[in-house]
């Protein structure tokens, strides 16, 4: 008969739990979200022999069952809910051999829930070098379970671990610790009220209510009414629980663990002396940042160009191969470029997550957080916010996904809200073309190009806006967060290529599927709005032909004029005319208005939209530029793109929230439309006011 085993993988952060998961499941993984929250749910399956399927759930890393974050909450909700379909038949607690003492705390808690619990001691390959000896049989006896010594790096001990999982029903379910030991008097009272309940579970439910609230518990009716202790007293009891457990662990390890502490000067302290040094620490960190920039801007250019060309070619091919008609147009002009618009981000996102995964895996990220915390805290951010802010210069989408490392919700939310201010790569083409149009190509002090300085200023402006608004948000947001700052400084480790690769692939996939759906939908809507129109739109060809009948122009030019006429009279053109009164005070005409509207899907659409409107017929930058330079302001005369309107446009693009994908990802990460809507409204309002002021002042 086929056997099915549910396994829950638990462990402290930095114990290599995920590598154990990767080893056990290979690539048979599924990453999703727990219903209603944005905590990542990783599960996978593997086969033991022919008849035994094992379903493994990789629970978020946690130091104990007393939860303080939404991620940890997932752990306890599962372990207390027997009716959950993922409720484990057997729990595997992964521990790091070098931090056994701390790791055993979680083990004793899980074990006390009456779930068969295997202890998997990871990084066993380091034991010899660190002169650690363990008396496994004795430890098994005291902890009342089976222990697997494993090494996910060297692939040692997994066969035995699998064997233990398969025979989980031979494991004892007796608790390690008698809960009454924490406070005999309190637990006696509990027992009198709930004579048939497991005391430790009851205790967890009660304290959990105090700390976190709203636990789904059918089994524990009436617990809410059991209020005999003040929250302060319960907290004191929790402290006592922790201390009692550590006493047990200390006694246990005294008999079973020996560390020859001769080699105190290990790699960690030597590396730390350099990497967290008050000068070298920053130098190295900024060096690494430069490398990441280089990868994102420079190296990913080649694959991005390739993707761009391939999709353009695919579009052409579809147009010429499929039977002509609106449906083909939708595919060739709406769907294929839409998908291309998603795929083109893959290289940058993959590079970014490659580096982030390496920095995380190696243990270096904790040092950066340590270095930056004091500075960032002044602005309501955390040391951990530095990663998203830097990543935001590539693209806000992966950057916002990277905020997940920030445990404190307020600091995380502020980081999410301000990250879109940093100058992302989509703004770059817009900046480049406008700067080259309105900023004179002269040199300051003989060496610095004025255009270059302007571009640099735009980056500084974006970063400054992010920091400043973080400071403002910190003052006005009233969010109480319980978590506080404590960062484990793990041992340095050489990242496992397999782990890095899996993280990179998973994150990239999450982007393509999550944000991709929205980008695709928007590009289809835009295509429809630009391809259809009321009244004159449908007679475009006849009207334009009549208008140019007397003039001698080539077939191609005529075609461009027809396209331009169509766009002006399409729905999107109507929208452009409709909003013209609103954008005229900023120095723009209806054509720029359309570009602004389409830019709300993605900023980089700006150049392409203007290209279509000015009927250039190609995306070649030089031709668009000369065409834009020749454009005349219909009311004031003179060039439309002058210093005043150019600066106004630059400011608008620097501040406005013009990116549907970012809004979508913010919605996903904050799990509400409230925050992205505020972002949209406030950022756009700031952009409008600043552009208005700049134009009116400069014109």
């Amino acid at each position: 008969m086929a056997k099915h085993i549910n396994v829950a993988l638990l462990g402290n952060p930095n114990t290599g739990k995920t590598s154990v998961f990767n080893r056990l499941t290979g690539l048979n993984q599924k990453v999703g979200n727990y219903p209603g929250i944005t905590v990542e749910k990783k599960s996978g399956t593997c086969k033991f022999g022919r008849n035994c399927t094992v379903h493994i759930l990789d629970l978020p890393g946690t130091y104990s069952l007393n939860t303080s974050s939404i991620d940890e909450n997932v752990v306890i909700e599962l372990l207390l809910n027997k009716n959950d379909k993922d409720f484990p038949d057997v729990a595997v607690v992964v521990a790091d051999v070098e931090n056994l003492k701390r790791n055993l705390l979680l083990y004793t808690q899980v074990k006390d829930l009456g779930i068969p619990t295997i202890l998997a001691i990871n990084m066993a390959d380091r034991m010899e070098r660190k002169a650690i000896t363990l008396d496994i049989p004795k430890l098994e006896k005291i902890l009342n379970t089976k222990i697997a010594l494993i090494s996910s790096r060297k692939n040692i001990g997994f066969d035995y671990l699998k064997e233990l999982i398969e025979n989980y029903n031979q494991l004892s379910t007796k608790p390690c610790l008698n809960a009454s030991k924490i406070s005999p008097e309190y637990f006696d009272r509990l027992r009198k009220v709930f004579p048939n309940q497991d005391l430790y579970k009851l205790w967890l439910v009660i304290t959990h209510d105090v700390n976190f609230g709203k636990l789904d518990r059918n089994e524990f009716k009436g617990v809410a009414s059991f209020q005999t202790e003040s929250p302060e007293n319960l907290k004191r009891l929790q402290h006592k629980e922790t201390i009692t457990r550590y006493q047990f662990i200390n006694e246990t390890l005294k008999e079973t663990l020996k560390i020859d502490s001769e080699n105190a000067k290990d790699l960690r302290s030597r590396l730390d002396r350099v990497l967290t040094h008050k000068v070298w620490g920053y130098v190295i960190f900024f060096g690494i940042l430069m490398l990441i920039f280089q990868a994102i801007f420079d190296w990913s250019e080649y694959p991005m160009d390739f993707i761009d060309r391939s999709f353009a070619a695919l579009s052409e091919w579809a147009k010429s191969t499929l039977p002509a008609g609106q449906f083909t147009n939708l595919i060739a002009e709406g769907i294929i470029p839409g998908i291309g618009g998603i795929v083109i981000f893959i290289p940058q996102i993959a590079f970014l997550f490659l580096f982030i995964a390496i920095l995380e895996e190696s243990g270096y990220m904790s040092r950066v957080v340590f270095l930056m915390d004091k500075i960032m805290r002044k602005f309501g951010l955390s040391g951990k916010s530095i990663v998203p802010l830097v990543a935001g210069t590539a693209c806000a989408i992966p950057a916002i996904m990277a905020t997940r490392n920030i445990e404190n919700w307020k600091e995380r939310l502020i980081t999410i809200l301000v990250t879109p201010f940093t100058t992302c790569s989509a703004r770059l083409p817009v900046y480049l073309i406008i700067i080259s149009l309105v900023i004179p190509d002269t040199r300051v002090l003989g060496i610095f190009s004025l255009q270059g300085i302007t571009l640099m200023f735009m980056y500084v402006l974006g970063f400054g806006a992010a920091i400043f608004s973080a400071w403002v948000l910190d003052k006005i947001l009233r969010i109480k967060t319980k978590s506080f700052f404590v960062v484990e400084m793990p041992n340095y480790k050489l990242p496992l290529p397999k782990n890095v690769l899996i993280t990179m692939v998973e994150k990239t996939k999450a982007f393509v599927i999550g944000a991709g759906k929205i980008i695709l939908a928007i590009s289809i809507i835009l295509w429809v709005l630009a391809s259809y129109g009321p009244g004159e739109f449908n007679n475009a060809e006849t009207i334009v032909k009549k208008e140019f009948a007397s003039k001698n122009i080539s077939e191609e030019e005529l075609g461009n004029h027809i396209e331009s006429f169509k766009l002006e009279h399409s729905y999107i053109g109507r929208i452009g005319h409709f909003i013209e009164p609103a954008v005229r005070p900023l120095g723009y005409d209806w054509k720029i208005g359309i570009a602004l509207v389409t830019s709300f899907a993605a900023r980089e659409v700006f150049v392409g939209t203007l290209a279509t409107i000015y009927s250039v017929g190609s995306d070649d930058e030089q031709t668009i530029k000369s065409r834009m330079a020749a454009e005349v302001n219909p009311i004031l005369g003179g060039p439309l793109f002058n210093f005043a309107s150019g600066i106004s446009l630059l400011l608008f693009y620097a501040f406005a929230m013009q990116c549907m994908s970012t809004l979508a990802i913010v919605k996903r990460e904050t799990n509400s439309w409230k925050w992205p809507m505020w972002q949209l409204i406030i950022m756009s309002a700031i952009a409008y006011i600043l552009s208005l002021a700049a134009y009116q002042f400069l014109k």
Partner: protein
Amino acid sequence: MDLLPLKLLEMGCLPGNEVKLIQIAPFNDPLYIDINGSHLAIRRETAQQIEIDLI
């Protein structure tokens, strides 16, 4: 002791243990400590809640 966050206790910061200050971050905060084999970085405000004897 009561003010100390539970998490710190759980991470191995227990009464009676030896604390070693490894590094102070630039601008004097946070502190990087080794307590009972746990290497942690905590902010100064938290560290102030820990009572220590110099040895």
